């Protein structure tokens, strides 16, 4: 049993399973906490409010754009960059094709990959720099915030360190770091990747009934 085999086969399946089952269970358990039926007379639609809130909160509103421009810029740079890399990096497309879905799609050209990675890294490093140097964020951050940031960073970095695609060891290190990330994910605040819809939606539903979307 080689390390390469272990990381590529059993550990991959284990971590993917922990991720999928963990995320589903966490979301299920969250919704299963339940809530009472709202007995008030609705002025507007809860569903409409939920949709509005989910969409509205993609962009800062209420006059905050200039005040939170940093978060907007760095946040989107990182997140959009990460998703593009995740779905369109050539080795990822191959991996998705061969190991997960059985279909592939046109990957990014190399120059676009590099550019996207740089944007994503810049966003993540800026967000981290802010987290350690903003009194507000220092006050509210906990170990989980830092762990999530670092694990994501390491997964991205090891991926880019393997860019020459000529060394199994580097590929395995990347894969291993991704597997650690996948296992950590359902137990951590990385879950915000899914819970944001619930949070925005629930808030929108509450206020949608009242005819307003804050």
């Amino acid at each position, binding site marked *: 049993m080689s390390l390469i085999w272990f990381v590529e086969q059993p550990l991959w399946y284990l971590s993917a399973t922990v991720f999928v089952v963990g995320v589903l269970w966490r979301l299920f358990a969250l919704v299963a906490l339940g809530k009472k039926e709202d*007995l008030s007379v609705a002025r507007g639609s809860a569903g409409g409010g939920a949709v509005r809130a989910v969409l509205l909160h993609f962009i800062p509103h209420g006059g905050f754009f200039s*005040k939170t421009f940093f978060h907007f810029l760095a946040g989107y740079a990182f997140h959009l960059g990460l998703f593009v890399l995740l779905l369109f990096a050539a080795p990822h497309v191959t991996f998705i094709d061969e190991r997960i879905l059985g279909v592939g799609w046109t990957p990014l050209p190399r120059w676009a990959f590099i550019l996207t990675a740089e944007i994503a890294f810049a966003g993540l490093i800026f967000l981290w720099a802010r987290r350690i140097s903003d009194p507000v964020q220092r006050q509210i951050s906990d170990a989980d915030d830092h762990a999530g940031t670092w694990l994501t960073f390491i997964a991205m970095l090891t991926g880019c360190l393997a860019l020459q695609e000529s060394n199994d060891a580097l590929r395995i290190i990347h894969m291993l770091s991704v597997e650690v990330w996948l296992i950590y994910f*359902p137990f951590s605040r990385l879950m915000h990747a899914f819970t944001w819809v619930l949070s925005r939606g629930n808030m929108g539903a509450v206020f949608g009934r009242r005819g307003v*979307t804050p």
Partner: protein
Amino acid sequence: MSAQKAIDALAGQIDSTVASYLEACIHCGQCAEACHFYQVTGDPKYTPTYKMRPIDRVYRRDKAPFSGLMKAIGLAPDELTMQDLEDWSELLYDTCTLCGRCTLVCPMGIDIATVVRKSRAGLVAAGMVPEGLLAAAERAVEQGSPLIKPGVLEKVVAKQSAEVGIPIELDKKGVDYLVILSAMEILNFYEVIGALAKIFKQAGISWTISTTAFEATNIGYQMGSPDIARTLVQRIVDSAEELGVKYVISPECGHAYTALNWDGPNMTGKRHSFKVIHILELLEQLRRDGRVKTKGLDGRRITYHDPCQISRRGGVIDEPRSLIDQISSNFVEMRNHGAANICCGGGGGVSSNPRAEGLRIKAFACKKEQIDELGGVEALVTSCANCRNVLEEAIDEFEMDLPVVGLTELVAMYLDEGEKKPAARKRRKKAA
């Protein structure tokens, strides 16, 4: 020893909605930008999401998915202590007006204000409610109002009735509308009663005020006591049912509307047998139907302060504007008006909490900036008696010259009463 009670109370407040808020917070701190208490102090402990920390800890320790596993491997947060609760008492009671402006800026759309209000239940259970609020709640339960002693209502109503020359019958059965009032209105802004009498007379509305359930302010709702909040709502519900009204008119009072209309049925556990209508909604409806006619225009440069619970959290945003447009020729809007408006600084029970007074006055600086930007504003119109009181106090404190006017009274001033001139503009002398 009673920390467990608080923990249980907090756990009891967590449903799937609250849990989704707690799960989604990524600690980005943008909410601080929306909070007037953080803005005027720059103290990071006033960051709105930090105020959710106690309930978040209870959630992550006892209620969250995988919390058992986390506890087993020692990664669950520590159990809440009495000291923690004491530390958060200021954050939850004194420095959050439940205005909900932080929700606007939150990329996750978290309704922090609701979580803060629910968190107060933990402090209620731990017996850590600020003195002022507790006393007000006791008076509300025992004498029917936090501020109005028995018998005072009758006198005030009689005086107003005489002043406008319209009879007002208390506890009258079989009318359509039951008017409830905020204590602040009865005490300080009683002209609103005469104003309502005039408007309703013109519109041909049958109405009454109950001597047992006249108080709209729900101090239990503000202090986070589900029991007291339910008792106070139940009192109005019982009275409305007994009098057989079709509507209960929620007055110019912020929390009253949320507490009675939006959360009321959920507290009593059954749908209201009557409809709750906010006074602004009713006035706008009457105006549109031509049942309330006005004459003349107010030429002063006026602006409208949106009470948080009525606009951002109540959805009554357009109505006051159409009403003002009807009677004003010089209405200007503040930046970020409507759902994004800045709080007066004293909602959510903060104004009933003497401990919070210093910071509350300080927080008015944010509101003042919003007003000053417009330049030359001659009157500030609002539709919440608590806002009005808080604003007047702060305006005095900041030595500004700016009258604060209730919208209902303003409408009544320009009521078209046939040959009679528009009501004389009588400015109440400030008590303080």
